[in-house]
């Protein structure tokens, strides 16, 4: 099993869920008693708000869980090593032949040249300009 990618974040998210859970339960209980319609609406709204936040927190934790599963699978696949593929000598010879053909094809082309301005200029004198800069 791979390590948790971010145990501190997981703890923070779980702590937030733990705060929300009793609030949601209490609000749900409140919702069952006789209340004015305005108060009932206010309670219903807070149930929705807190349940949504709880769902989003749980979603992030689920994603962390999936990262652990994916990393475990990656390690099981041998990551980070990936060995050189061993093939039959005949196949390797064929491959080298193909590689030679590709080199020959590349040799058909030449790269565009680049203009190089020398970095070692020489200087000749001139009268100082009279016009101000810049």
């Amino acid at each position, binding site marked *: 099993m791979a390590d948790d990618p971010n145990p501190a974040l997981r703890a923070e998210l779980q702590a937030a869920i733990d705060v929300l859970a009793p609030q949601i339960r209490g609000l749900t209980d409140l919702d069952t008693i006789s209340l004015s319609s305005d108060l009932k609406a206010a309670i219903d709204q807070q149930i929705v708000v807190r349940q949504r936040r709880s769902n989003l927190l749980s979603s992030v934790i689920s994603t962390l869980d999936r990262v652990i599963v994916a990393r475990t699978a990656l390690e099981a696949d041998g990551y980070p090593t990936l060995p050189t593929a061993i093939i039959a000598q005949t196949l390797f010879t064929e491959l080298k032949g193909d590689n030679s053909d590709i080199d020959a094809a590349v040799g058909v082309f030449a790269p565009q*040249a680049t203009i190089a*301005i*020398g970095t070692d200029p020489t200087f000749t004198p001139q009268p100082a300009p009279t016009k101000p800069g810049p």
Partner: protein
Amino acid sequence: MDIQNTQVGHFPLTLTSTTAAGVTTTVPVPAGDVFTATSSSPSLGVAVANNAAGNQELVITPLVIESDAANAGGGIVVTVTDSNGDVAGELSGADAINIVTVPVVPVIRLGTPVFTTQPAPTAPGP
């Protein structure tokens, strides 16, 4: 790069080519390939001329007294292209041109003397 306003700069122009293996070499300039230079500022004249060896070179000529950071100028970019459409060369970034005045070297000068009196010394010379 600074150039003094009393100087004309002559830069060699060549062509380079990089192989697939990443090796950069200088390649001959094909006959008929003509270089053209442009300057990002009218304060710096640029041209392409043949040097004594008959090779094309970039010639930059300061046309103003000063163009640098001190007067909100300088950083002049020079671009060289050619008739073959090769990748342009540039004097830019740290190589961009600043036109500077000739540094003045301070000289110590002795002023007109003023004489005051003193008692005659008693020690013999010299």
